[in-house]
């Protein structure tokens, strides 16, 4: 018992020392999570200490609360003594000579004058809390951990989120959805259509009420709708375009009235979404991301985690009682609400946020493309970057003047290049060619298994990289300079109305193209997965021989899967090139394959989880530049955690 505690403590100490000497604490020093209260390196230290306590108590069995506390605290004591010893050592000899980024973890993190004894005590206490976590019931633990993690996450990006929407925006949306659901309950409505009608009317009523308040001066400075530091984004519409405002709330009300009879998982997801809106709304009332913001975040997420853990099964049961037609309506309502949220997102997150979302979207596209092969057939494809690059370069070649489109190596200005295509002409061609390449690659791969397959796909990715850099192809691929000047898609509807033309130059406009591509890709992926073809894929993944025994042609299945996957990866690449206004070889390294692979594995086979994973691993580092250096480290940790779950039968037929 004592031994496991000491071992855990020593392991954790080694880890924290390593992080210290590497300078992780140093690189985060001075960045506040909660202004003047909690810095990132302190949070990091706290998280590692909680982890230490948890680990020690978990390894030690943690059969009773005092024991768990003692085991956690004991491990914490070892860590803190070790760190203090390191600091004493640092006073005696100059560690910076060998480890230039070394910073005292305890003293630097606390940034206040604490005696060594106080810091020691604090660490022990926090570690004991970790020990308690290991002892407590799994349901309670997951509530606490979820809330803590989300609070931490929100604090990271708090300053950015704070200006997204005002409190009135959040409250209006929440009021429409929650009061609609309560009204449906109170009126004892059981039919889907009636519920939606009640919700819609309720939404309209609230919209009119808000409009009346706004007309009464609520939106003028100092008015009741103007509390806080952020101008109302959504409620602001009541003046500029009242019809849109009312219609939006009617729609939200109609769809939201079904919130209490959603399938359990959707119910939980939607409630977390609403909690997020509330938290952001509250943060908008503060002049910066303060201790209050963090506290409210913690409380709201604790409440929502606790509430959904109890209520989701109730909601699930209601959903099950519906007939299949109503169930379909309920599902559509959920997707509709999610879609509405996604549709309006660029309004809230600003230029930088939209740009980040676009990047996240592109990675999501690539991951879904990879998922078709990885999750369905279970082929370890390390070469997805090849198809990503193929899509980008094909689109680049077809839409810019070059050897192929103009017939001369260096086109002059005077020459009319008749071969240059528009984005819309080039895209289908890009998809088809990418798909064909996928089919061709699949043929030799059919004969390979496991490790050999991984190596072969890795080679395909590397070949792509080398071809892009090769001088031999300079006239077409531009070698190291790549292809510059790829134009953004131009939507030309001037035939219908002379004013209807749009070049998707704004990130906020381009966002919708990516959103459309994601929806299409998700649809393609899920429809295939649940069809005869997808069932054959999954059968091959589970047992190749048995699948063959049932008459499934492995080669044919591989070719179809690779073709689809490659075409979709090509789509992601094409959009990526347009996003960057060019295709450059540096964008297409092995790391892209690894990141996509990591995302798919951490996505645990579900699109929703994949989206969250992409948001966390691609989006977050954009907001928190300090994290970008550790992106692969975090991805690695996420992978290890995900792998522990992958061995369980987590997959369901719905996918």
């Amino acid at each position: 018992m004592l031994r496991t505690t000491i071992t855990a403590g020593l392991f954790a100490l080694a880890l924290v020392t390593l992080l210290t000497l590497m300078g992780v604490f140093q690189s985060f020093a001075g960045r506040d999570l909660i202004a003047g209260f909690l810095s990132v390196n302190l949070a990091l230290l706290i998280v590692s200490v909680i982890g230490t306590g948890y680990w020690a108590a978990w390894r030690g069995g943690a059969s009773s609360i005092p024991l768990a506390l003692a085991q956690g605290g004991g491990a914490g004591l070892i860590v803190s003594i070790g760190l203090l010893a390191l600091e004493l050592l640092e006073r005696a000899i100059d560690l910076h000579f060998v480890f230039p980024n070394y910073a005292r973890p305890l003293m630097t993190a606390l940034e206040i004058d604490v005696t060594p004894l106080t810091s020691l005590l604090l660490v022990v206490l926090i570690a004991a809390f970790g020990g308690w976590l290991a002892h407590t019931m799994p349901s309670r633990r997951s509530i606490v951990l979820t809330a803590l993690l989300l609070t931490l996450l929100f604090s990271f990006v708090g300053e950015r989120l704070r200006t997204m929407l005002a409190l009135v925006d959040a409250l209006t949306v929440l009021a429409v959805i929650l009061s609609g659901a309560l009204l449906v309950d109170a009126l004892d409505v059981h039919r889907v259509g009636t519920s939606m009608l009640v919700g819609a009317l309720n939404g309209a009523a609230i919209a009119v009420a808000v409009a009346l308040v706004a007309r009464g001066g609520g939106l003028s400075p100092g008015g009741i709708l103007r509390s806080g530091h952020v101008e109302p984004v959504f409620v602001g519409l009541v003046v500029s375009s009242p019809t849109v405002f009312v219609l939006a709330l009617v729609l939200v009300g109609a769809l939201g009235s079904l919130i209490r009879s959603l399938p359990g998982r959707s119910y939980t997801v939607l409630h977390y979404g609403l909690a997020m809106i509330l938290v952001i709304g509250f943060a908008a009332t503060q002049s910066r991301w303060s201790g209050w913001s963090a506290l409210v975040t913690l409380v709201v997420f604790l409440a929502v985690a606790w509430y959904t853990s109890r209520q989701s099964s109730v909601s699930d049961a209601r959903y099950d009682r519906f007939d299949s037609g109503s169930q379909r309506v309920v599902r559509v309502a959920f997707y509709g609400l999610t879609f509405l949220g996604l549709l309006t997102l660029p309004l809230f997150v600003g230029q930088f946020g939209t740009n980040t979302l676009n990047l996240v979207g592109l990675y999501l596209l690539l991951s879904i493309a990879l998922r078709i092969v990885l999750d369905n057939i279970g082929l370890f494809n390390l070469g997805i970057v090849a198809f990503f690059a193929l899509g980008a370069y094909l689109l680049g070649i077809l839409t810019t003047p070059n050897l192929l489109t103009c017939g001369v190596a260096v086109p002059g200005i005077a020459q009319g290049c008749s071969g240059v295509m528009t984005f819309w002409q080039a895209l289908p061609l890009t998809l088809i060619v990418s798909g064909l390449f996928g089919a061709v690659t699949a043929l030799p791969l059919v004969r390979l298994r496991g490790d050999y397959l991984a190596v072969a796909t890795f080679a395909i990715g590397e070949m792509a990289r080398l071809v892009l850099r090769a001088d031999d192809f300079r006239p077409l691929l531009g070698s190291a300079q790549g292809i510059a000047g790829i134009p953004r898609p131009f939507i030309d509807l001037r035939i219908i109305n002379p004013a209807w033309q749009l070049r998707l130059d704004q990130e906020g406009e381009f966002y919708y193209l990516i959103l459309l591509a994601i929806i299409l890709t998700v649809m393609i992926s899920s429809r295939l997965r649940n069809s005869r073809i997808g069932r054959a894929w999954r059968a091959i993944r589970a047992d190749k021989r048995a699948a063959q025994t049932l008459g499934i042609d492995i080669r044919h299945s591989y070719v179809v899967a690779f073709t689809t996957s490659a075409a979709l990866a090509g789509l992601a690449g094409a959009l990526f090139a347009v996003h960057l206004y060019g295709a450059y070889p540096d964008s297409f390294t092995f790391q892209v394959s690894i990141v996509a692979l990591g995302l798919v594995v951490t996505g645990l086979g579900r699109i929703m989880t994949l989206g969250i994973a992409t948001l966390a691993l691609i989006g977050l580092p954009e907001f928190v530049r300090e994290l970008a250096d550790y992106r692969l480290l975090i991805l690695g940790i996420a992978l290890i955690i995900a792998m522990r779950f992958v061995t369980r039968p987590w997959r369901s037929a719905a996918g």
Partner: protein
Amino acid sequence: MIDYLLQIRGLMKRFDGLTALRWVDLNVPEHTIYSLIGPNGAGKTTLFDCIHGVYPPDEGEINFRGHSLIGLSTDQVARRGIARTYQTVRLFDGMTVLEQVLVGMHGRMRTGVIGALLRTWTSRREERRAIDFARQLLELARLSDLDEQFPQVLPHAAQRRLEIVRALASAPSLLLLDEPAAGVDETETEEMINLIHRIRDEFGVTVLLVEHDMSVVTSISDFVAVLDYGQKVADGRPQEVQANPRAIEAFLGSSPDLQFRL
């Protein structure tokens, strides 16, 4: 002369000097239950593997409805109408009970990528029909109310039955069952025998099965062939074989629990 569904002539299979099958002849008439028995290592599963295109025989002929199966791959043999189960349960992880049976219908369905993506009228109709037929098969295997479950939660005997109806889903004319009653208790064995009878009678499927359990073999089979050290030592009606001295010798020479119970 009787028209045989499956005719095997002079089949030879060697593995690095070990002869697994030696000049085996086998004639399986249509709409019968034909059992292969023999001590461990007699070559029964090897015979199945040769029929089902896992590896080619070194010599000999395998004719199914008058067409040779030599050189065909497993999935091609399956599409010719020969389904098979394995000695160990090989259900697909991560797929529901219903989906397992739908996979069995793979070769009979036509929906391609385009049909699946556009959910065309024909593809939806095919899917509906497939699901209807799958439910009928699940009813046959008494698994109707478990169709949304994952196979891991089923008891062993239910998994075996599921595997058999999954093979049956491909609407084969010949079903190869490798020890369908292995690890299944007595009452469930009854049920298994019943299931196999219904497969022959209601679906008109010819069954070729390998079995150790003699009570199963005698109560189920129309014909029996005995294999010993890769050679067929006897065949015919169960009663004839039980009286055949070479068959008795083959079993007396092996472990006692495999002896005939006369």
